[in-house]
């Protein structure tokens, strides 16, 4: 086959532009590989896998043009189970590997899957650089707040005081807030969702694919072996409505059993949780994923600190900025446009030359 390295003439692109589509959407079954899934029974990864396997066919892309790249960890086993192209690489480096692939192949939809250790511990640097560059990648971080594969050490997203094999007296370091970190790293698309909420998860994936550039999605994932119940508050029907804040673009930020709670900005530039009945809906913060500045999204990402246990999910930010790989390709096209395609003989003979005979 010949490799389509150049896309169509440049110009600002959308979502999955350049990735070939197919008339016949595939099925979940077609997107399921023949490899036995080897996660622990009950692991949250199963739900994510099922959601992705169902969602991908929806996109109507040619299956062979989808690539899933991962590092190492339980989550990072993901590619084996998707019947697309895939690479299970080394710990933490998947965003870098994917950057090379996405930059050289505009016709591929490139996904990066991994755990919180993979993305935020050893791979933290590659992640933040992929985000600031805005490489056209969908980065899904399965955050179980633990190292699963290595059998239960604390991770950079584990809460303070966590007792694990490596921290028998409790961990002392403040975890990253993945959404805050991504926003601080100039991410153009940042979202959070939950393994068990198939509908929400799928809607976030949809938004991520519509975004051109780096889309970072934190998926809260239960590791029932080493950190069971980490997100029970957000899942338990008794508590979830008051714990989960579902962000919707253009809508006031409300939650609670009947949307009776809301979020408002104080004069001091902080957020507070208020009683909607008391303050009125107009007083509430209206969520704006398109806000050119990430500061408000950042503020929302801290809501859990302001009101303990409250966790906003949904898309925090989704703004347009040219993707790294698109621009790199444009520079190549420009060079050819202005100076013609490369001429090897001319290159070799460039500079001062002389002839002997």
């Amino acid at each position, binding site marked *: *086959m010949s490799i*389509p390295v150049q896309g169509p003439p440049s110009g600002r692109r959308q979502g999955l532009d350049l990735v070939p589509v197919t008339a016949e959407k595939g099925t979940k079954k077609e997107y399921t590989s023949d*490899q036995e899934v080897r996660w622990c029974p009950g692991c949250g990864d199963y739900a994510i896998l099922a959601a992705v396997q169902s969602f991908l066919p929806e996109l109507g892309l040619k299956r*062979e043009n989808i690539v899933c790249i991962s590092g190492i960890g339980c989550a990072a086993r993901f590619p084996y189970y998707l019947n697309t*192209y895939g690479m299970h*690489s080394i710990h933490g480096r998947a965003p870098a590997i994917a950057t090379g692939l996405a930059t050289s192949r505009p*016709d591929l939809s490139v996904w990066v899957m991994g755990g919180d250790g993979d993305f935020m511990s050893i791979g933290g640097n590659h992640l933040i650089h992929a985000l600031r560059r805005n490489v056209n990648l969908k980065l899904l971080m399965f955050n179980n707040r633990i190292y699963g594969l290595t059998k239960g050490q604390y991770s950079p997203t584990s809460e303070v005081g966590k007792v694990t094999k490596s921290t028998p007296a409790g961990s002392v370091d403040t975890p990253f807030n993945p959404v805050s970190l991504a926003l601080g790293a100039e991410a153009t698309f940042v979202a959070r969702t939950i393994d068990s909420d198939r509908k929400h998860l799928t809607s976030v994936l949809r938004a991520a694919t519509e975004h051109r550039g780096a889309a970072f999605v934190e998926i809260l994932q239960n590791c029932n072996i080493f950190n069971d119940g980490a997100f029970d508050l957000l899942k338990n029907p008794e508590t979830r409505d008051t714990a989960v804040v579902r962000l919707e673009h253009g809508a006031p930020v409300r939650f609670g059993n009947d949307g009776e709670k809301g979020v408002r900005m104080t004069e001091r530039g902080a957020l507070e949780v208020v009683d909607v009945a008391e303050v009125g809906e107009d007083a509430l913060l209206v969520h704006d994923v398109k806000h050119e500045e990430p500061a408000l999204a950042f503020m929302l990402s801290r809501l859990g600190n302001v009101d303990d246990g409250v966790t906003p999910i949904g898309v925090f930010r989704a703004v347009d900025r040219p993707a790294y790989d698109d621009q790199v390709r444009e520079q190549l096209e420009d060079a050819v446009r202005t100076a013609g395609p490369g001429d*090897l003989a001319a290159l*070799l003979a460039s500079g001062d030359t002389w002839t002997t005979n």
Partner: protein
Amino acid sequence: MAKEVQQRDRVIIRFAGDSGDGMQLTGDRFTSETAEFGNDISTLPDFPAEIRAPAGTLPGVSAFQLHFADHDVMTPGDAPDVLVAMNPAALKANVADLRVGGDLIVNTDEFTPRNLAKVGYAANPLEDDSLSSYQVHSIPLTSLTVKALEGYSITRKDAERAKNMFALGLLSWLYNRPTETTLAFLERKFAKAPELARSNVTAFNAGWNFGETTEAFTVRYEVKPAVMPPGLYRNITGNTALSYGLVAASVRSGLPLFLGSYPITPASDILHELAKHKRFGVRTFQAEDEIAGIGAALGAAFGGAIGVTTTSGPGVDLKSEAIGLAVTLELPLLICDIQRAGPSTGMPTKAEQSDLLLAMFGRHGEAPVPIIAPRSPSDCFDAAIEAVRIAVTYRTPVFLLSDAYLANGSEPWLVPDVDSLPELPVVFATEPNHAKADGSPEFWPYLRDSTTLARPWALPGTPGLEHRIGGIEKADGSGNISYDPSNHDTMVRLRQAKVDGIARDIPPLEVDDPDGDADVLVLGWGSTYGPIGAACRIVRDEGGKVAQAHLRHLNPLPADTGDVLSRYRRVLIPEMNLGQLALLIRGKFLVDAISFTRVRGMPFKSDELADAIRDVIEAS
């Protein structure tokens, strides 16, 4: 006017000055003129370490040496015949190398008490007899230049700066070089500042005329053109040649070139060079670190590009894990290591050959990687193409071991005809290659070619070949994860056999043994080629018998290496390390090879190598 003209068959000149004195440029221009004239040349720039040290200090000295001759030249030369010293620091740092009786041209303007003190000269060496073994030409280069430029509307600083052109003019006169290329160059360089162009040309001419007129110089020298194979030539450094080789490999294979790299001395110039060639579809990615650089290159290789990463020692260390991944993924990948003096930060601008065993063994597990090493600056071109050939043919990462000396050194290069370059045909997998139990077709990513043992390269985007690869051990054939003990043993040996098998596909070891009766073989690799060749020439000129063989392929070694070694009573292996190739040769062939090592960050001197050869000949 009509000065005496003496014939010389070879001359070595070193320009030395402060970092700000433009010595590299001066050297480059003199090289161009000399090439144009038709001499054979070899050059060696010697940059100051990393940052620009304060003016006038020893760490700030920048030098450029070139060796030109009426015959083929193998090294930039041991001891210069002429030293141009633009200030006391340059004198102090370089004068010890000057051949006794050699010409020493000093810029007296800079020999102020303050500058002398800066470098620890208690007395002005121009005024005592410490330089009496040289032909000293004390010339106020700066003030002569400034005077020559009176009337030009340029700053005093710019006028002073032009002193390097004065010096160049003088040297050009002394060796009777053609001046057109330099004059044209100055016009080009200062195209936007015509007054500067004119003043630099004037300075250059003033230097020429100074030689012509003054009594300071009583002789001029003539070095006849060398007889070289006919064709179009250009001067080229190793890093440029390497970059061109990569572009050529891309053109000849039809695969796009992707460079993932993180800047590091002395490799950065390859990144800079390749960044210019967007018209060839070359993508350069300046990564956040070395790991991301190689990672991205590997990702691009998965997508069908020629993935390349360029670096030096510290970067190779960091890339080790990813190289191991590439070994087991069996994807093509090129790692160019422009070796510098280590360990650790070491001496970043200096050359060494101390990464050979790192390239061989620097990864956990059994992870064999082919290794190629160029022997001269222009040879970096061919070596790069050969490295890409092996990578894409065998689906394996390949190491290319250049070094700081090759990288920055230059020599004339007979520009090859594009059609004469190797074709690099690559066949991607397009069809399933295996049948399931039920007879339906499937794709096995680890089903090997029976000759090369290479696995198929199936690109994302190819329908029906969807597959997953990874770093966990894979079942032979299907590529599925396997923890089966004997499968692992099989796979470890298969990967080794694949790399070993490349020996079938590389030329035999060429031996230069003019009379075929030498007892001693000098075996080398990499940038020592020139010095070893020159040393052999010295020994042979005295009637000594010595054979020379030089390894381009370090892993695997040419199939006949053992045979060749067994034909000689003694084998001498000179290396700029503590004996790395020697260990491999001894371990593999049980030959009692003698290791001769110098680890000084600089190429061997051919004289010291000649001594070493003589010693071995005598002892054998």
